[in-house]
């Protein structure tokens, strides 16, 4: 993986993928919660500010939710 942004996108997608089995709505909430609980602020800020093209639907939903209520 090259670059921090790629790495953050990969991490968010990986979290989302593991929650996906619980259904999209739950998974989006759980992914958002997980990032909030375990990510350093600069990481959160970076993924919010960065290119979201590589995010899966759930991950993108989670990031959007974080943006709405950080």
């Amino acid at each position, binding site marked *: 993986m090259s670059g921090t942004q790629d790495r953050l996108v990969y991490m968010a997608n*990986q979290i989302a*993928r*593991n929650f996906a089995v619980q259904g999209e709505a739950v998974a989006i909430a759980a992914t958002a919660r997980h990032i909030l*609980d375990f990510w*350093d*602020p600069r990481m959160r800020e970076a993924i919010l500010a960065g290119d979201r093209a590589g995010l899966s639907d759930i991950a993108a939903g989670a990031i959007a939710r974080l943006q709405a209520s950080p």
Partner: protein
Amino acid sequence: MGYEPQADFGTPEVRADTQVTLTIDGRSVTVPAGTSVMRAATTSGGAIPSLCATDSLAAFGSCRMCLVEVEGMRGTPASCTTPVAQDMIVRTQTPRLEKLRRGVMELYISDHPLDCLTCSANNDCELQDTAAEVGLRDVRYGYAGAHHLGQQPDLSNPYFLFAPDKCIVCSRCVRACDEVQGTLALSVEGRGFASKISAGQRADDFLSSDCVSCGACVQACPTSALMEKSVKEHGKPERAVITTCAYCGVGCTFRAEMRGEQLVRMVPWKDGKANRGHSCVKGRFAWGYAHHQDRITTPMIRESVDQPWREVSWDEALAFTAGRISAIKAQHGARALGGITSSRCTNEETFLVQKLVRAGFGSNNVDTCARVCHSPTGYGLKTTFGTSAGTQDFDSVMDADVILVIGANPTDAHPVFASRMKRRLRQGAQLIVIDPRRIDLVRSPHVQAAHHLPLQPGTNVAVLTAMAHVIVTEGLADEDFVRDRCDWDEYQDWARFVSDPQHSPEFLEAVTKVPAAELRAAARLYATGGNGAIYYGLGVTEHSQGSSTVMAIANLAMATGNIGRPGVGVNPLRGQNNVQGACDMGSFPHELSGYRHISDGATRTMFEQDWGVALDPEPGLRIPNMLDAAVDGTFKAIYIQGEDILQSDPNTHHVAAGLAAMDCVIVHDLFLNETANYAHVFLPGSTFLEKNGTFTNAERRIQPVRKVMEPANGLEDWQVTQALANALGLGWAYTHPAQILDEIARLTPTFAGVSWDRLEREASLQWPVNDQFPDGAPVMYVDGFVRGKGHFVVTDYVPTDEKTGPRYPLLLTTGRILSQYNVGAQTRRTANTAWHPEDVLEIHPLDAENRGLKEGDWARLASRTGETSLRVSVTDRVAPGVVYTTFHHPETQANVVTTDYSDWATNCPEYKVTAVQVTPSNGPSDWQEDYAGLTARSRRIAAEPAE
């Protein structure tokens, strides 16, 4: 405490509901039914002479010294093999017995050397003591008869010698190897007068035998036939200090036996509740690193890593360090600073490091090596059960009927516990092993796994889901337990999920490569075989789905009702001695001690009030994120206590790049480790023998670590951290770790009842220790889960992104070996290298043949992240397509090839799955040679201290 051997009651303790009262030499004695007369006599203060009896071994009855007279019984029965009976009347000292004992002793001494005064066991010898007790004055047989004198000693083992002419053939060594250690490496050869102890077969010596050098035989020997070489060298110890081993997570307690400041030997403490008097080659013998010439005892600094080190005073080193940290903080902010706590250091030291980072540096960028080993355990068990720890004590295994070992290799990594497990298996418990390799537990003398599921690395979740499928669809779940203890709705969701035909063993066989019938049989056995206990290790956690696997394990245990009593449970086998403690102490960036989230206002307030500073409410960076941030330029300085992340963390190139990008790397360690190649400050550390404090083992047992000798560098590690804090102006004033422990107890509800005084009295406590569990909790969740109802989590199998392909067709998995420990910093500096001088690559014969590789050939091991070279060992322990190595030697740097894939929830690296290629090689790779050069340059120390 002075030096005196621990009391020996002759035969093992018996637990019985009924008590029996008898009379021994006129004294009335009450003991549990089934106790031997010998033990009853010893208990009541009237020890009976004996040689073949010792309380760690079943009564044997061969030496015939312990004969007694019993009213109404014919002859003179041996007190070790005679159980007590109600109203029995025993006499242990009569003229007839005196004569018999003296007669037997006369026979012994007629075939024994007479050089007691120059013997290494002089004044520490049971034969000598017993000869004195029975009053032997002359050997009327003379010394010209047949004898065993003059035989050459076996000096092959690095740590102990075997002198056959001092052997009295009591078989204690053989029995210790059989009963206590379970290796069965020894036997008696021949018979009658020609009987002699044999290590293996006729041509074997101790080193070539199956001996694992645990020391149990040496411990059991009543003479100096088996003797530590260190005692021969230094003489009999004169004092002993009880302390806790600093190797693996078993947490053995030892008597450190001393002569002055010289450690003479480490002897397992019989009252230690984790080890019950047993030991392994590391804790028992591999302590020489403490005295090793490589120890750095003077602080060193340098402006940049291309310079040689400069030895300086503590004051100068601390001022230099504080200056750099303050400057970075001023320029880049607190979040550019961080620290790593050590799972090898004490709870108190760990607590201080995270306190320094949070309260002194002002960030939450603190992490610990658990990040790279058991962080998924913390996450998974907290999510399901509510507590980030294993559920049982080690004793629990003796009540298990079915033992499921997944992703752990206890005989190598947790040998003392493995011996208990093997003892239980020899008693008839059944064993299931889930592991890509055929580890020793699968089949070794008298141990045979009922089922070995040799899964494809990376498919743990699929295998456990398939087991759950069998248990649920075949109606083997314990629904009463689930309804009572767990969230029933969640269980039903989970049960529906696992029941899906796509989760059947047959469907998943293509993924897991585990034969479905075998998997079904294993699942049935676990669910229906009685008490089922799961033991797991890093083969579970070090995966992209480490946390999912931990939760899948918890699900299985709950679904089958295997929680909340002895003999069951979910038991992580912790890697390092204090990895449980380091986690407990708030070493993770998102939580304070006792696993409370940093964002929780009430908790944070408690700390802020106690510490008198404001804390950052946001989680900090994990180790891999710190390295990323360093490369990005937002993370500048790190204080690393007792860790060698360059060698132990994955993707060495990435770690090196991160370290190289920092402005201030402070390494606080015993030796100039690999990480120190990139350090600006080196603060010399102290060994566990040189400090006070506590360790917490894998069974949540908090045990004291006691200072055995003065620190070579003058300071215990907590004192160094305190000095650094004070150089930063924090004004700490701890004078003893007991005060730090008081602070921990004050701020951590699960430790509320823990104190140094109490540990001095009670030797150990298993947390939680508080109002609800005033005496601690050997077995957790007896009355329910901490979080209320047990939480079933649906764990979907998500394959790792690390895939084999044409370029990298093999899967590498990594692990440990008995004689070496972790990065080998300690064990490589001991004679343990006799067993494992280098890392080797295990490869299946088919894969070896395809590559033209033979046993002992050099091979290049390459992945997409890097390559290294090492020798191969051709073995069918690994399946075709799988290769295996250890990571104990920096010359190999196995982590050059591991990737930065990691657990989805905790970023625990995926050490256990790396796609690799193996090709023939002529020797070390270019990178290895370059690295050796870098290391040599980096370790230069300026000849004269600068003024």
